[in-house]
């Protein structure tokens, strides 16, 4: 496009010489002609192929002329021709200008070249002069160095001699210097000096002068070594001094093994002192203990019993025990363990970790030294441990567990330092074992303390039960709860206070044991304390064992009391039975949940399930209650039996009253009813028992009783009695007299009444009655009927047994003429 514009401008414009833009166009056109565009690149234009383009390279004048001739009119041709002429003229002038310009430039260039030629010539001359000068300088320098060479060699030699002389001087002065060092006790300096000279002396020892020096040095060094050893042997020097000594001795080629031994034996002597100090403390405590030893022995037993007494015994404990365990362990840690650590550290620094140089490396000192160290530490630690264990065993009182735990923690923590210093040592693990043993022992102690506590609480309860008339003594378990108003704390109060005491005690024991697993205690993350301690130790060994112990001892109450004729008060049996039952229903699971929560027990080993414990507690409760029924039943039976056996029933007088013993029986039954009702629920009766006693009894006496033994007096039919009673028995259930009872009041009372009445029956069957004897039995039975029905679950039971009694009495009667029912009623109501 640009070319087109150029062409058009060429056509349209006249060649103006003056205008700069015109000039540039001319330049560009020239450039174009020579095939250069503005960027200096040859461009091939498509339209330039046109032969009619007057500026194009392929311009063909013939074609152009023909084209013009064919296309243009004459006028146009004329115009065209004039235009062409104009253009040619301007082009010619342009060309002339250019040629002229270029010519001038050429002339000036030729001038410049000529001038340059002249300048170069001058420069060549100067260069020649310079090279000549340089050659002269070189010559001079060589001359000077040649003259100086001799002197230089002499100086070098002189300086060598000087150093040698200095060395020699050092050597000659060495003995004196060493002596001086020795005097000043600057052993390190002496040794380093000697070390420097040693090789030389060794090398030139064949020369007599040097030999003399060497011998002198030897003597001095020998002396020095002697002094060092002396110092080493002396106890007074500090660990740092010692280590310096050892280092120097090592440098003096002293055998390392011997040094190790010496070092260790030296340390040993100091540890000996520490251990003896500890042991003295140990021995001390039994000595001072003998005075208060008995007190201390009894303390663990009585100590946990009541919260009040523990405060009084605690201050007593501290003076008798000498130093407490924390102090002991502290002392052990501070004196023994820390200096042991120090010794280990310096030993390691001296013999094991030091950089090995020269021939020392080949002797394999670290291995040997390490072995020695291990043996040394192990023996010492074993003694220390035995002392600690003895001390721990003395720790019998369970009053303050935190002290023990803190002591053990400190003990264990300090041993960790050893494990860091001596990675392969068995000492820390042994220490852990001691801690574990101590923990186990502690659990056992707690268990026995709990057991004693339980026994003592029971004794207190027993006293409270046995001395009801005493006015509010200090013996009461509730510790002043029931002081003023009522002489005795009632059974429920006793029960709650007892179970609270036990529970609180157990909780406090758990809390103290829990200290073993506290987060800030170092050994609490040992596997034993995470697993076995919690599950086997605390849960099984402490809690479960204690619960089992309660059940066990409860059962023992049943067994021992049976033979010795009821040495246990029945109320205690009742109370324990309720306690066991409460344990079964709630307390056991509560305690175990508490334990599991507190100790986050993960049971890897099988543990006693709650259900098994509950079953055991229930069994114990059942046994106790059965025993209670038996004991109470026997007490009443005994009264009835004596009353039947001691009376002459044949010759008795006509009954006017209910016998006193029957009233007593009813009274006792009522009081038992009250007693049981305090602890056990009512229980279920058969529905029809709400009728009044009177009506049931009248039915019983008028219908059944009359029918029953009226025929038996007629001589004709002896069979009828048996038949009737047999028929009766066919329809009534068999009565188990000493059968297990349920956990409610009615069942308990039913059991007691069954036992009593059955005894009554059996005793009646062994006697022979007169007429009034029978009547007395009738009156008594009616009286019992009136009052006993309300206590039992099924009053038919009472009816049946009383029926049997009256029936049997009638059988055993020589002159059976029963009393009028109305008379019986009058007598009973009156009495």
């Amino acid at each position, binding site marked *: 496009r640009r070319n087109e514009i150029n062409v058009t401008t060429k056509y349209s414009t006249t060649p103006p010489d003056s205008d700069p833009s015109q000039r540039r166009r001319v330049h560009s056109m020239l450039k174009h002609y020579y095939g250069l565009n503005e960027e200096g690149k040859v461009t091939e234009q498509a339209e330039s192929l046109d032969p009619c383009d007057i500026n194009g390279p392929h311009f063909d004048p013939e074609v152009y002329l023909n084209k013009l001739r064919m296309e243009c009119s004459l006028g146009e041709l004329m115009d065209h021709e004039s235009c062409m002429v104009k253009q040619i003229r301007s082009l010619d002038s342009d060309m002339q200008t250019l040629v002229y310009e270029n010519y001038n430039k050429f002339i000036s260039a030729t001038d410049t070249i000529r001038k340059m030629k002249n300048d170069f010539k001058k420069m060549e001359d100067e260069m020649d002069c310079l090279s000549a000068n340089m050659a002269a300088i070189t010559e001079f320098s060589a001359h000077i160095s040649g003259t100086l060479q001799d002197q230089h060699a002499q100086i070098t030699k002189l300086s060598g001699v000087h150093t040698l002389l200095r060395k020699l001087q050092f050597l000659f002065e060495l003995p004196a210097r060493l002596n001086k060092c020795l005097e000043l006790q600057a052993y390190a300096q002496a040794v380093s000096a000697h070390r420097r000279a040693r090789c030389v002396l060794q090398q030139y020892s064949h020369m007599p002068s040097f030999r003399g020096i060497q011998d002198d040095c030897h003597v001095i060094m020998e002396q020095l070594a002697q002094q060092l050893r002396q110092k080493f042997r002396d106890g007074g020097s500090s660990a740092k001094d010692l280590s310096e000594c050892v280092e120097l001795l090592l440098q003096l080629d002293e055998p390392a093994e011997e040094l190790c031994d010496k070092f260790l034996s030296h340390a040993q002597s100091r540890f000996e002192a520490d251990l003896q100090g500890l042991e003295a403390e140990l021995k001390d405590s039994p000595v001072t203990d003998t005075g208060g030893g008995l007190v201390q022995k009894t303390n663990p037993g009585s100590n946990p019993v009541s919260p009040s007494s523990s405060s009084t015994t605690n201050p007593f404990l501290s003076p008798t025990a000498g130093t407490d365990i924390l102090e002991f362990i502290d002392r052990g840690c501070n004196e023994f363990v820390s200096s042991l650590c120090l010794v280990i550290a310096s030993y390691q620094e001296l013999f094991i970790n030091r950089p090995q140089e020269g021939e020392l490396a080949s002797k394999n000192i670290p291995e040997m030294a390490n072995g020695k160290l291990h043996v040394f530490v192990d023996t010492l630690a074993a003694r220390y441990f035995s002392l600690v264990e003895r001390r721990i065993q003395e720790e019998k009182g369970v009053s303050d567990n935190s002290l023990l735990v803190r002591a053990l923690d400190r003990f264990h923590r300090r041993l960790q330092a050893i494990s860091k210093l001596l990675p392969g040592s068995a000492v820390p693990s042994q220490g852990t074992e001691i801690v574990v043993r101590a923990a186990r022992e502690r659990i056992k102690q707690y268990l026995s303390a709990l057991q004693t506590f339980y026994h003592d609480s029971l004794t207190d309860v027993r006293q409270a039960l046995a001395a009801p008339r005493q006015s509010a003594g200090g013996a009461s378990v509730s510790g002043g709860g029931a002081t003023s108003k009522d002489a005795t704390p009632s059974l429920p109060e006793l029960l709650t206070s007892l179970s609270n005491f036990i529970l609180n005690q157990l909780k406090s024991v758990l809390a103290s044991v829990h200290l073993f697993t506290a987060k800030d205690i170092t050994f609490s993350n040992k596997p034993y304390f995470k697993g076995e301690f919690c599950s086997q130790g605390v849960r099984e060994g402490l809690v479960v064992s204690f619960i089992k112990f309660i059940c066990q001892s409860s059962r023992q109450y049943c067994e021992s009391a*049976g033979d010795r*004729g009821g040495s246990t008060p029945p109320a205690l049996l009742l109370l324990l039975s309720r306690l066991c039952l409460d344990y079964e229903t709630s307390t056991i699971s509560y305690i175990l949940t508490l334990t599991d929560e507190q100790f986050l027990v993960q049971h890897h080993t099988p543990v006693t399930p709650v259900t098994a414990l509950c079953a055991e507690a229930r069994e114990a409760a059942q046994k106790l209650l059965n025993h209670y029924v038996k004991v109470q039943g026997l007490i009443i039976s005994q009264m009835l039996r004596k009353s039947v056996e001691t009376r002459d029933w*044949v*010759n008795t007088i006509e009954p006017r009253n209910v016998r006193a013993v029957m009233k007593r029986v009813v009274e006792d039954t009522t009081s038992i009813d009250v007693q049981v009702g305090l602890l056990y629920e009512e229980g279920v009766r058969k529905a029809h028992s709400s009728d009044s006693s009177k009506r049931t009894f009248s039915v019983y006496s008028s219908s059944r009783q009359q029918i029953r033994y009226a025929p038996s007096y007629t*001589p004709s039919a*002896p069979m009828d009695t048996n038949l009737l009673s047999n028929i009766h028995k066919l329809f009534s259930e*068999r009565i188990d007299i000493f*059968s297990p009872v349920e956990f409610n009041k009615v069942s308990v009372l039913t059991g007691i009444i069954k036992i009593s009445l059955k005894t009554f029956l059996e005793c009646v069957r062994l006697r022979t009655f007169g007429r009034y004897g029978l009547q007395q039995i009738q009156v008594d039975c009616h009286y019992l009927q009136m009052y006993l029905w309300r206590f039992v679950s099924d009053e038919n039971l009472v009816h049946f047994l009383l029926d049997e009694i009256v029936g049997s009495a009638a059988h055993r009667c020589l002159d059976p003429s029963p009393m009028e029912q109305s008379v019986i009623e009058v007598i009973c109501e009156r009495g």
Partner: protein
Amino acid sequence: MEDDAPVIYGLEFQARALTAQTAETDAIRFLVGTQSLKFDNQIHIIDFDDENNVINKSVLLHDAGEIWHISGSPADKAVLTTCYSKTSESRVLTCAAVWRMPPEWESGNHESPDDSSNNPQTLELLCHLDNTAHGSVACVLWEPMGDGKRVISLAENHVLLWDLQESSTKATISSSATLEGKGQLKFTAGKWSPHHNNTQLATANDTAIRGWDLRSMSQIYCIENAHGQLVRDLDFNPNKQYYLASCGDDCKVKFWDVRHINEPVKCLEEHSHWVWSVRYNHSHDQLLLTGSSDSRVILSNMVSISSEPFGHLVDDDELSDNEESQQEDKGKEPLQDSIIATYEEHEDSVYAVEWSAADPWLFASLSYDGRLVINRVPRALKYRILL
């Protein structure tokens, strides 16, 4: 193999006294004494036909009074003693006497069993064991396996040793002992030991068991508080001379070694009321029978304290006989102390149990309502003991 059903026999009267006819070793025979204040009392002779499983009975009249205790002579099967209560002047006294059964009871009975109740024969009185000076007699004991010449009667707190002379028609006290102490002491039961040449006696009073030497008539041991309550009965182990079983009102049966009287060797508590009677089997002393006023009879197998060691016979068999090992697997496990069976045929208190003198696998029990039940040891157990 099924066990035979128990055989039950009913008496018209109430009864407490039962004994096996000790001298009779062929027939299975029990004697029962009735208790009735209104009618003439009887002694029922119960013959048990083991093969046909039937009972033959004969009745003898005992018109002296109601019978509290009965005991047969070990030498003469026609002779027996009873303790009976006699009422006179509104005073009741229990006396003892030696009787002879009329010789013709057996033959006459068999011919017409129906007549026996209508026309019962009467016992022939041989002699009284006169006790007017000593009070009521609790029981009369024959010398075990003796010649039927010596009996002991326990009257209140006296032990009386009688010599029977002139075919038992005359009884004289050869020696006596009296238990002294505070309170009214009264013997409730006693047993003549078959060991030590019949020189020892054991008695029970209240909760204590005492041993007596009959030669010196002095006490040789005393188990105070043997039972929590009254001791009701005793029996000696027939094969182990120092072993003795007792029972009482604490529902327990206890086994004692009289050389160590502080603790019982063993104690059973299976009954739910007083235990009135305890009897060792005469031949196999691991078998023990107890009767109680809970109307039950319990047969126990006390192997651990018996004279027969644990199943050693079984072991011997096994060594020789491998073929039967399959069968004997059951017998291999040693027998444990256990209750073999509880018999509940009674509906009233059982006051007496007794092994048969003739058949060691058979026993009788008597309840107050007059029901006599004859039972056998279960066959399985019997064969295990025998084989």
